[in-house]
């Protein structure tokens, strides 16, 4: 072995690597030159027998040989890998796959599903009712006397003297209680109608989720516990809440529940109108007159009821600032809710 043969080998390497076009060829190249018993190592062995005065130059050349062999191998390897991923048999594998469209549930349905799941885990069953109701179920049985101003709280669409579009899901409470005996623990989601001017903040129909629990020994303390648990699960465990006295004909005592604004964490922002609080639901203990209307004895059972607007909660939750967008069903909005 001499200096010349080393340089000749380098040239051979360069020529040979040109002929490598597959992984298999490359592996042959590696076995030939780069393994312990390969040509490069063997030539290094020859260094031991070389004349001492030749050794420096020869060693330098051998090093060049080794580096060249390794470099050529590495370059070829990465080149082959690129080819491998980009194309096989003339196909560009980086082209996107044939995707299927992604289906969505409406944001209102999604908010409702999340609420429903929480209450189901707390032992509530789901009950549904008609959207066309009569005065009895929508008002009278719920302790709205005829000629009472409480009826003004809900602007009603009428169909005739007695029939109307339900203004809340509370008539389902009446239907559930008239159909079965206590204990009762139900949630009642559904669509309701109010004859209110349409704007960014209100629409002529929306969706509510109502809850009702009737049994012996049900108290306001349990109502607070139930709704506090719901709020923590739905809005996050850091949420703060407050119950304020309010008035609904069908509950007494009645309350409104406010939660700390989850957008600004109670500091005050545009959404909570700088108050730090959001009104999310109305609730209270079932009024004895409601029990009388459905044939329950208010001396035997107590109960609580609550109701919340799903649409408005969905708006808050998802940061949509115009309620009408929920009913326009622009797919560019819907597709954000995968």
């Amino acid at each position, binding site marked *: 072995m001499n200096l010349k043969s080393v340089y000749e080998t380098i040239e051979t390497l360069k020529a040979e690597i040109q002929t490598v076009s597959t992984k298999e060829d490359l592996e042959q190249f590696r076995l030939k030159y780069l393994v312990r018993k390969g040509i490069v190592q063997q030539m290094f062995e020859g260094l031991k027998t070389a004349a001492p005065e030749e050794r420096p130059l020869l060693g330098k050349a051998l090093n060049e040989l080794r580096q060249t062999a390794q470099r050529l191998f590495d370059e070829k390897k990465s080149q082959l890998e690129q080819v491998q991923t980009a194309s096989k048999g003339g196909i560009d594998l980086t082209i996107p796959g044939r995707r299927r469209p992604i289906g969505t549930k409406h944001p209102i349905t999604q908010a409702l599903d999340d609420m429903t799941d929480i209450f189901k885990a*707390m032992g509530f069953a789901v009950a549904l009712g008609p959207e066309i109701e009569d005065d009895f179920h929508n008002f009278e049985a719920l302790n709205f006397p005829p000629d009472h101003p409480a009826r003004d709280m809900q602007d009603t669409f009428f169909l005739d003297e007695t029939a109307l579009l339900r203004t809340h899901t509370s008539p389902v409470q009446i239907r559930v209680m008239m159909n079965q005996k206590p204990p009762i623990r139900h949630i009642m989601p559904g669509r309701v109608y109010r004859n209110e001017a349409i704007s960014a903040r209100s629409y002529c129909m929306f969706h509510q989720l109502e809850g009702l629990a009737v049994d012996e020994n049900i108290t306001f303390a349990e109502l*607070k516990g139930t709704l506090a648990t719901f709020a923590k699960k739905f809005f996050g465990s850091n949420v703060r809440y407050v119950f304020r006295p309010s008035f609904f004909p069908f509950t007494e005592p009645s309350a409104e529940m406010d939660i700390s604004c989850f957008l600004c964490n109670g500091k005050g922002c545009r959404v909570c109108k700088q108050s730090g609080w959001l009104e999310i639901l109305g609730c209270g203990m079932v009024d*004895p007159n409601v029990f009388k209307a459905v044939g329950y004895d208010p001396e035997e059972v107590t109960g609580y009821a609550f109701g919340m607007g799903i649409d408005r909660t969905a708006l808050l939750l998802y940061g949509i600032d115009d309620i009408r967008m929920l009913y326009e069903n622009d797919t560019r909005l819907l597709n954000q809710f995968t």
Partner: protein
Amino acid sequence: MNISFNWLQDYVKIQESYYEIADRLTMIGLEVESVRSTKEIYKDFVVGKVCDVRQHPNADRLTVCEVSDGKTKHTVVCGARNVAAGQKIVFARVGSVVPSNGMKVRAVEIRGQLSSGMICSEYELDIGDDHEGIFVLSDDAKPGDLFSQYYWDDDVVFEIGITPNRPDCLSHIGVARDIAAIYKRQLRIPEIPVKESGKSVKSLLSIDIKDADHCPRYVGRIIDGIKIGPSPDWMQRRLKMIGIRPINIVVDVTNYVMMEYGQPLHAFDFNLIDGNKIIVRLANDGETFVTLDEKERKLTNNNLLICDAKRPVAIAGVMGGLNSEINNGTTSVLIESAYFAPFSVRRTSRHLGLVSESSYRFERGVDPLQTADVADRAVRLMQQLTGGNVYRGRVDIYPNKIKPVRVSFRSNQVERVLGISISAVTVKGILKRLGVEVKETQKRNEWRCVIPAYRPDLEREIDLIEEVVRIYGYDKIPVQERASIRFIEDDVRPGIQDRIREWFVGAGFNEIVCNSMVPGNCNAFTGRTAVQVNNPQNQDMTDLRTSLIPGMLNVVRHNLNRGNENLRLYEIGHIFSRDAFHGSTNYINDYHEGESLGIILTGSRNPDDWSLKDAEFDFFDLKGEVESLLGKFSLDNIEYNIYHSTSNTLIDDTIGIEYQGVLRGYFGKASNDVLKSFDIENKVYVAEMDVALLREFFRVEKKYNEVPKYPPVHRDLAFILDEAVSYRNLERIIRENGRPLIQKVSFFDVYRGEKIGSGKKSVAVALELLSNEKTLTQPEIDNTVAQIVRAVEQNLGGVLRS
């Protein structure tokens, strides 16, 4: 209800800040919805003095004024005619925001003259209508003083959302009473010493109540010798502060006293009352009357009128009449203070579509025991302010005394309802502070409570429990984060709706939610009689939808207009009709309501699959979706029949979805007429079916059928058939004649061409043959195939294509 913070302090001592009071009121159920502080509103408005006025060099109608704000002088260009040197005025500094319009005052050059600040008019300050001239203050105003301090005494107004059960809080005294109850303070009601003189009222006026149900009490007092003019500044300010426009001394006093006590009053010009007589009677049907607002009102025999000897002079509790209104020439005033029955005023107010401050209070219930006192208060104030002469006594017609409501109260019920024990002493204390008289009875823990007349909402024990906890504090009720629940016996399995939604999400559809109220023409296409809304909000919402499809087509148009052209949509919602339909229930009258599922396909089959990019949806995509969905819900004996309807014109060539001969849904391509009326040019495929069908057959119980032990055999056959022969017939013949080995018949191709001949088609099917007993032999297979081929030949005239 607007409540002035300063005004409140006439009746109860308040040392707390206004925001603390606002918070406490909210926490006892008097929700303070907004707080307006004059200090905030008039932050940069000060009393100023006009030191010098000179003509603007470049404008005839403008002047240039030097205004001192107590410290520095400002040059201000002013357009008002009435500005004069020496005047005390309200000066808005640069940077202040004008209350009436929200504009910011800036330093600007007006015709070459720099103006820094503004001299304000009443209109700009939001205290009156005058925007011509500037608002000139009296001479005692000190330049540099804040306007909010000088004019408003730094008052704050609360806007309180009074719930319908609390008519007592539609007044300052009422709100003060609740504040007194929270802080355990004294309520101070104004003393009303009336100086009477002259004749007795009874000799001047008679009152006759014809219908005591509608009018349980009516009090009249007369004040004479008064001069109509503006009310004093302090009264005007208080009224303005709570948003009431001052009119004249008489009207202002009646409004002031109403806002003080919550008792609406009416003032008649007594000289215009004919026959010195007031008759309270029901109107005759069709009787007309012109109210103060100069509108003619048509009445029914349910509406209560106040009349003189000859004619009506007011609609009781709602609005006075033009014919007896206080005017500039009025010298003698009859004050009416009455208790009209809530139901009566409410009916009239609703019938007339007229809600006044007066009707609003009467229909919620005023205090029937203070009727006379309030009349006294009003005449006393008028006397003080105008120096008139109050005639002796009053006419007070009160045929049936209203007895106080008594409620028995068991103190243990507090814990039963609230889940917290509150001591008897505390409970009693709260009730007493709210004016409830509490008496012990023979029974332990049972009291008799006498309800004050100003609280018509307190009728039962539960009402008192609410009062107790309202004042005690909702925050003190524990948060019980556990409950004893009984396992619900009824059906809690997931609703069919959830299953349908999951299916469509997996299939790449967007769920949409549409309005149930639609314009009348939407329902014209469905052939069902629509339920109509009696009081629709507008012409686009007159009917309830009889089908989901029209609403969904609106959504299609909305999306197409925005460039969203490829749509797969579904909706689950209620539809309504006057006629029964499949899946409908009749809950109320003859209204039928059912749950429906709508499906829409339009545009490209799959824009995210580049190999299908340009493939448009067609009829068989829709049919496939329907078939797959029904298959998912285990509905395999569905028939798809061509369905002819003259009334349902939603779809051309409708396919009906029939189960046991009953139509449960339909699908096809939306008809041109429909698309035209929705302004849609693209092809749209629509399907609708009743959800009850899916629910009925949704297989809950799942059962395993043994999988075949022996391998199936596949054979493909192609038959040349007349065009008229339907695939369904072919499949039926094959199935009937391939028994018992035939398992599956699948369509895979139809071909038409020269080789086949005109009027003919070649239909290719794949057969699967299988036996559960053994592996099939070649002769058995051939035999079955031959049997099938023969049957197709004989029954359908089909020829096996070789």
